């Protein structure tokens, strides 16, 4: 068979390949069993074998119109409309709008005249201003194909809207949705194929031979190939076209086509009229559906009935492709040529069935995936109208007691708030994306926090065909986060208050007692001593408060300057050495070599930090030990490490180590490490503490190294 046109087979193959990939990647774990048998049987009454008017049976054109998704009008040489085929447009409109009907009748009556003035294949514009392709058929009648519009021509759309107003058609919405838009050039191509098919069938009837029927079959194949497109694929349309074609070439009359799937599905009438033979076959099928090889049994049964009861020959052909089996049968007087048509079309039907089954499976699976995703997903067309939404989105709406918007409703006004709605409208029309956005929508009890993305639904040509909104309801996490923050704030406030109470009440108690004692003692020297103490205690209170305030603001107005850390340590060495000596501690210092270890900060603050940590280590090693201080430059960070082999820090204290007023030392303020930690943080560094009980503690300070730009 020839697979020359429209790239349809290429798409067919790629769909299989895609599904195979999905399967290999274990995304789709298994395919449900595909329908095993599909039978199209054709039954023709050869009442008028030489009558060339037989092919114009409405079923044939109807099938063709559905396959092409176009309007087909047949007009006789006098301009009378013989038949109009398109279930959607504009037949429905005609009945409702008399002025539209009048305009079209006027147009049709002028077709022969228009054709006389123009060349074949040229476009004409109908009363709505939509392009139509026009051709004269072999028998002298005219074929009009079209009623569609170039999609990316906003001016044409505006004109159409205006014309509809003139013709008093006001319910435009339905009209738009019924439009399948196509470029005029494409339409001309379709027309050429349709005319070729028509003429080949016509030739077959005037000279019924093998080459003629094969030419006709090839033309049918070309038309079917047009629908092998993921967007337009329609098994029913293809089956109807095949069945109608066979009905036509079988000579019409009470011909019909039907199909069924194995096992146990009822018969489906594709094309033609019901007859007692169909009814009998349907009953036969029911009784046969459980036999081992139903197609074969059915074949012999039909052969027996048709050949004995109606003196007709029956031919049936089975073809299996990718697990789908088509059974195509034809009943008629002339067997030889039909058999060739059968052989050719059964292949195509098998492919169509296979694709349809796989795409049904795929859509089903995709639907499952789509609905299993917890995020809400809403897909809109390029006007921002909702095409579909998943379960997650529906649950979101019902969860907030909002009516779930229906498909076809605009996103605007759904309650997503201006920010999201605008993003959807922009993405639907352009190729702009909005990623990782957050919005709060609604108020009071129904306040919701959303994290969302809006991406355009890009077609192959790069234009936006719509938008996809993916959103996450983060209301609960946000609420929880706020609550935790509140708790933390309260807890920290409580800790600080407790710490302050401990620290302040000591000098306060001393001061108060001192005042009471001053009143009680008569000795002036003693009074003087108590007053001095009082003053010192008041100073202490002030110091505690100052220290406390410095935790949050450790370096008020100190100048930031490049500081060489090795140099700072060197300056502290004298002090640390003497403290280490007193406490029987070995002090080991390893300075980094090479590039100077420079950071940006205040030398005083850094000294304070180093001294603090070194003293902590020394004081921790009550029974002596070893303190190693080492510096290094690693990955653009200056590192200073204090390692002791003291008793270590119990696990339960680790979390609170750097909190204000935490101390295990008698007389300690619990502010040292807290202040050190915030100084390091202010300098853009980290202070990390690792400890293991009985082995010692390591404090690491990592600061961003300063690069001299000059």
């Amino acid at each position: 068979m020839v697979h020359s046109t429209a790239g349809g087979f290429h798409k067919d193959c790629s769909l299989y390949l895609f599904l195979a990939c999905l399967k290999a990647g274990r995304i789709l774990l298994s395919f449900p069993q595909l329908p095993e048998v599909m039978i199209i049987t054709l039954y023709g009454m050869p009442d008028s074998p030489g009558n060339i008017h037989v092919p114009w049976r409405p079923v044939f054109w109807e099938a063709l119109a559905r396959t092409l998704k176009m309007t087909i009008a047949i007009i006789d040489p006098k301009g009378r409309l013989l038949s109009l085929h398109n279930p959607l447009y504009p037949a429905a409109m005609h009945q409702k709008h008399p002025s539209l009907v009048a305009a079209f009748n006027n147009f049709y009556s002028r077709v022969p005249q228009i054709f006389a003035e123009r060349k074949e294949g040229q476009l004409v514009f109908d009363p709505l201003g939509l392009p139509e392709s026009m051709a004269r058929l072999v028998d002298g009648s005219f074929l009009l194909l079209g009623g569609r519009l170039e999609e990316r021509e906003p001016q044409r759309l505006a004109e159409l809207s205006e014309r509809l107003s003139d013709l008093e058609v006001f319910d435009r919405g339905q009209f738009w949705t019924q439009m399948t838009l196509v470029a005029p050039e494409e339409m001309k191509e379709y027309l050429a194929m349709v005319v070729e098919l028509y003429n080949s069938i016509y030739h077959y009837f005037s000279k019924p031979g093998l080459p003629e029927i094969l030419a006709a079959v090839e033309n049918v194949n070309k038309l079917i190939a047009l629908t092998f497109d993921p967007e337009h694929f329609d098994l029913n349309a293809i089956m109807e076209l095949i069945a109608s074609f066979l009905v036509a070439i079988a000579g019409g009359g009470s011909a019909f086509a039907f199909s069924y799937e194995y096992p146990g599905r009822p018969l489906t009438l594709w094309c033609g009229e019901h007859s007692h033979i169909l009814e009998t076959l349907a009953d036969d099928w029911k009784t046969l559906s459980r036999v081992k090889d139903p197609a074969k049994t059915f074949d012999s049964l039909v052969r027996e009935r048709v050949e004995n009861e109606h003196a007709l020959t029956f031919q049936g052909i089975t073809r299996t492709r990718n697990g789908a089996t088509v059974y195509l049968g034809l009943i008629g007087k002339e067997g030889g040529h039909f058999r060739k048509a059968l052989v050719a079309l059964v292949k195509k039907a098998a492919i169509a069935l296979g694709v349809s089954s796989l795409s049904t499976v795929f859509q089903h699976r995709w639907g499952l995936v789509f609905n299993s995703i917890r995020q809400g997903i809403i897909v809109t067309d390029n006007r921002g109208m909702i095409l579909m939404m998943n379960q997650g989105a529906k649950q979101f709406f019902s969860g907030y007691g909002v009516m779930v918007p229906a498909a076809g409703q605009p996103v605007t006004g759904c309650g997503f708030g201006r920010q999201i709605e605008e993003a959807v409208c922009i993405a639907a029309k352009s190729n702009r994306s909005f990623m990782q956005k957050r919005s709060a929508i609604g108020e009071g009890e129904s306040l919701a926090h959303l994290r969302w993305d809006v991406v355009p639904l890009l077609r192959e040509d790069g234009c936006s065909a719509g938008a996809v909104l993916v959103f996450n309801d983060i209301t609960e996490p946000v609420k929880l986060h706020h609550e935790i923050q509140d708790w933390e704030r309260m807890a920290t406030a409580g800790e600080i208050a407790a710490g302050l109470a401990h620290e302040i009440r000591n000098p306060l108690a001393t001061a108060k007692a001192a005042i009471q004692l001053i009143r009680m003692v008569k000795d002036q020297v003693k009074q003087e001593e108590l007053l001095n103490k009082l003053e010192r205690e008041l100073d202490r209170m002030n110091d505690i408060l100052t220290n406390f305030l410095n935790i949050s603001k450790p370096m008020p107005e100190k100048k930031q300057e490049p500081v060489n850390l090795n140099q700072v340590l060197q300056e502290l060495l004298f002090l640390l050495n003497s403290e280490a000596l007193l406490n029987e501690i070995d002090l080991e210092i390893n300075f980094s070599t090479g590039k100077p270890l420079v950071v940006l900060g205040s030398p005083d603050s850094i000294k304070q930090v180093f001294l603090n940590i070194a003293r902590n280590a020394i004081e921790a090693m009550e029974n002596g030990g070893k303190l190693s201080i080492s510096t290094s430059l690693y990955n653009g960070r200056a590192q200073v490490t204090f390692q002791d082999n003291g008793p270590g820090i119990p696990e339960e204290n680790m979390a609170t180590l750097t909190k204000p007023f935490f101390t295990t030392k008698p007389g300690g303020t619990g502010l040292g490490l807290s202040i050190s930690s915030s100084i390091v943080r202010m300098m853009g560094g980290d202070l990390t503490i690792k400890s293991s009980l009985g082995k010692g503690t390591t404090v690491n300070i990592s600061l961003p190294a300063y690069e001299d730009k000059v």
Partner: protein
Amino acid sequence: MRIRYSIAQGGTERNEKVNRIDVVVIDDDEGIRWILQQTLEMGNFSCIAVNNAMQGINTVMNFHPHLAIVDIKLGAVNGFEVARMIRQIYNDVKILFMTGYREAITEQVEPADNVIGVLEKPFNVEELLQLVTKTIS
């Protein structure tokens, strides 16, 4: 028997048999130690003040005081543990706990015979002296 004790506490040598000391103060705050010492001495009570639990236990063991004033927050070892240890050494030593933050004391103050109460900072000097007088006499 003569006992040597910490010079840092400014103590002198004493004869244990003759002098049971009146009060031992255990608090890590220098100001509190000083003012309590001043107060108690003004009330004519003998007093030793120390700054940590270990020294406190040692001093109690050596001087068998009538009363120990113990800060509840004492760093690594808290005041309750110190009180328990004191009771094991001499069960007739009365304990007066001291705290700067009563609200934060989660551990129940054990209702033991030797605990006479919790002194809250800041305290009233005269009330303290009355309490000490009542306890020791």
